[in-house]
């Protein structure tokens, strides 16, 4: 027995909202997109194939709505895409240092060009595979990888705050480069913030 559509949607709404914000990068536009997306899912629920991933299907609807309809309409209406302040979009917490770091990372990603930002969010936030991301965005996998590469390079520059190692410098230590391991200054600051909050190394 599979979940009903309303159960699927109920479970997905927080992630769908996040994806809408990621696409629109502005609260008001994200609200329009989110509402439209829920209604479009409603209208097209017969097209959903039971047994396939609902999130995949819903995210593609959101993407198509944004790129094919809402984005151009907002441009025509002259409302633009001014990015909201980070405080409006992410939750606050008690640990100030952690929140500063979290806000920096969030802001850096939201500053990326739209195509790179969406690819990075689908892969690293939503956890889709490269192929699934390509399918949602309806582009070749190579395009996704290219967007990820460009986006990651931009984030590296932004997040390192000048720490990017020059080719051939003494800092260029190959031993520090391993899968799933980062040497960025953010890591040190995150661990520091984590230790202050009584946590351990969940995020490292």
């Amino acid at each position, binding site marked *: 027995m599979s979940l009903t559509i309303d159960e699927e949607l109920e479970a997905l709404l927080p992630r769908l909202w996040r994806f809408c914000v990621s696409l629109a990068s502005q609260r008001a536009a994200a609200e329009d997109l989110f509402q439209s997306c829920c209604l479009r899912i409603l209208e097209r629920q017969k097209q959903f194939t039971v047994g396939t991933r609902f999130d995949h299907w819903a995210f593609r609807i959101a993407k198509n709505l944004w790129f094919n309809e809402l984005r151009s309409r907002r441009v025509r209406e002259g409302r633009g895409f001014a990015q909201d302040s980070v405080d409006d979009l992410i939750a606050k917490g008690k640990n100030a240092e952690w929140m500063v770091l979290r806000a920096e990372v969030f802001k850096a990603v939201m500053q990326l060009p739209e195509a790179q930002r969406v690819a990075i969010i689908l892969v690293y936030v939503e956890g889709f595979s490269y192929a699934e991301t390509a399918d949602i965005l309806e582009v070749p996998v190579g395009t996704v990888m290219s967007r990820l*590469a460009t986006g990651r390079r931009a984030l590296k520059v932004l997040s390192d705050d000048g720490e990017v190692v020059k080719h051939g410098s003494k800092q260029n230590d190959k031993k520090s480069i391993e899968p799933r391991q980062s040497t960025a200054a953010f890591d040190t600051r995150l661990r520091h913030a984590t230790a202050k909050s009584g946590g351990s190394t969940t995020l490292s």
Partner: protein
Amino acid sequence: MSSSATYRFGDAELIAYLDGRLDDSRRQAIEDALKDNSALQYRLRELDVNTLQIRDAFDSMLISAPTADLPPAAPSLVRRQVQCDPASVSKPSRWRWAVAACLMVAVAAGWFARSAFDNVGEEIPHWQVAVADYQRLYTLETLGAAQPDPLQAAQQLNKVSQNSGLTVTTEMVDIPGLTFRRAQTLGINGQPLIQLAFSTAQGVPVALCFTRDKATTDTIAKNAIAGLNSSSWGNGEFGFIIIGDVPQKLLDTSAQLMAPRFL
């Protein structure tokens, strides 16, 4: 190492390597090349960002994301319609009504208002974020082979009881809609963290985890963490979380059932 070796690996492969998504042979080839190829080291370093931090930053949006519990009146109204004339209420129309109601109530409740963004929740305990990250790696297949018989289940529960100092019996893991699959002891901050793994009838993995955490209150809290729904509570000595990619309603019901069992 020659420059040709540097470009033997494309950006796509380097990203897959950093993401841990590259097959063993190519991963080994990159690691071999890295030993004496500074240009390749540089290219890799250029791409090396901490993706877990990105996920954490965006997961924080979920805490204040709109919730969409259908109003209690909605299902009953729909049910009444169905009872009066089942043929007149097709699934699409029910669905259309439910989502429209959901949206109307949501708007009325102000979850599109600016205040929704400013209404921030408490910081999610660190160990719960770790649990969510771990649980997120589970697939429909993960618990497939874990089908303990009653004796094995009792042995596993006895073991985690000894490790945690909190008694868990087979009766206590009897949850409607969930099948007990496995009990194991993990660890965080030098303390045991117990994972009781369950699956739904569809095989979707759900975990009930607990560790010593006196800060967690006995009020059941709902949070979406790392894209998973969860319900959490405490008993004054231990903190508990039940989490999975399942409807929040199932977790709430299970949490309400389980909380008194761990008093």
